[in-house]
């Protein structure tokens, strides 16, 4: 368990908690400020994206690795947790980022004769 490794007298759970709190604050602040503080330069969409995705990855790692103990537990648990990643990527790519007109433009062999498909 991670509590045996002390950093400045505190265990890894404490520091993980601090990191998670800090990055959550950073994430909310990034969206709260429409312009960079002290300037008139607007925060662009791509910067917000980069911050949200980057912070999400850091927070996800902190929770999974330390709070869920994947870092210290046998590798089989990490493999179990990562197993659905393939399906998640397939869903994000195949559904989430598919052609917006995908539902109506699917090949005929996978579109039943729905009224929905005809009228949409």
């Amino acid at each position, binding site marked *: *368990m991670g*509590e045996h490794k002390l950093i400045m007298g505190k*265990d890894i*759970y*404490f520091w993980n*908690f601090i990191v*998670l*709190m800090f990055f*959550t604050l950073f*994430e*909310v602040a*990034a*969206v*709260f400020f*429409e312009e960079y503080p002290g300037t008139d330069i607007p925060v662009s*969409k791509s910067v*917000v*994206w980069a911050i*949200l995705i980057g*912070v*999400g990855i850091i*927070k*996800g790692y902190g*929770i*999974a690795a330390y*709070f*869920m103990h994947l870092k210290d537990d*046998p590798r*089989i*648990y990490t*493999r*179990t*947790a990562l*197993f*659905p990643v393939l*399906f*998640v990527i397939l*869903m*994000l790519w195949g*559904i*989430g*980022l*598919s052609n*917006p007109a*995908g539902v109506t433009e699917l090949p005929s062999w996978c579109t039943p004769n729905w009224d929905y498909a005809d009228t949409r």
Partner: protein
Amino acid sequence: MSGGHGAHVDNAIWMRAVMMGGILLTIGVLLFATLGVFMANEKHHVWEELEDDYHHMEVQFALDSSDEGANISEHEADELYHLHHEEIAAHLSYLTYRVAGVTALLMAITYAAFIGLGGFLNASKPNAEHGDGHDDGHDEHHGSASPIIFAFGIMLFLAGFPDFAIACKAMLNADVSADLGMLSISMIGLLTIVIAIANWWFEDLPFNGHGEQIATSYPFEGEHIRKAGLWVFIMSEIMVFATFFSSYLRMRTEWCTKWAFDNGLENGTLIEGCVSQTQIDMFNSGVDYELIPKDLAMTASDYLRPGGAAGTGDFWTMLPGAVNTFALIISSYTIVLALKTAKNANWERSTGIMGKLMPTRKAEVRNYLIATLALGSLFIILKLVEWSHLVAEGFDIGTTQGSIFYIATGAHGLHVFVGLLVMLYLVFKSDTVGFDEENAQGVEYFGLYWHFVDLAWVVIFPAFYLY
């Protein structure tokens, strides 16, 4: 029943259950009386006054302008506008207290019923008759019908669910044409679920926790079966939330959001159904942005975040979601602290106020679990307050944006709520027999589920609230 410490708690169990149920109910009633009745009535009074003032001013200005044969002045329009906004703010303030009070009461009733029923059932049988013989060190699986009954109950509930809400609404309006057959199926399903949970607790969740079963074959050989099972469950949950997220992403790429519209205008990119050449030309010729006709799709974040297209977002609309994020992270930490304390054989009492609040290891584990329960309950209350505000602002489930938002965040909220019910059991156990290094698996495995719920929020919060 003998617990992990060999303490006899046969009579103590159900008396503690009744006492805890009573405490929870008292807290719920107090919160309801304070927030849902006293404060809400005060706010309702303010809202009614402002509403009257607004309508009075509206009528007065209309009469004045008809007398003078002219439109209302700019100053009068400003006054009317500000009063209207004050009235909306007063309405939302009233909703905050009312919804918080009612939610707290309903949750307290559920908690009290759950802990009362569970505690009573657990204490109603002598220890020897409790199902799986963990106390006796028998490791073989005894088999239980409860999961099947539970699944059957869910099937019945979902079968009747599509017409559940419609039938409830019709019944409230005394509409005899309501499809009560489907409502009955749902209600029978709910009853079956309750019976299955009660029976499961009764026969399969002993207070002792010794005799953890070990997997004997690949790939989890040598690992605790319950832990491996929980990870497989989490694996399936990842896929469930991935479907919500990918559906949202799929629809989001098609919606004409303010971001998509602005991006198209600024870069001169035509987007079918969103940005036309006429709009680009108007923008390039310097026409005021507000005057360019546009048909934007409003997402929840447009209502919640500052600068959102709905124009309603500010610090206060962001606050519930942000507080909920912090609440879940803190609750993840408190459950880690509960586990750490339970497993610490060399536990020593802290100095200062923490030592007074947590004089024994048992009390420390219990109090950390209670803190987790309180934070999770706060999450549900704030979630429903936020939903009530969104519905009042016009963002309801009737649109695709609203549908995916309420389904995804509602599914997450349901996971939190189910987790809170399990947490009640842990609080109850920590208060009666207590957790130690021998029987803390329950806290550890529940902690995995709770961290997963936190992890899901790490994705949902930025995707639905911030982006």
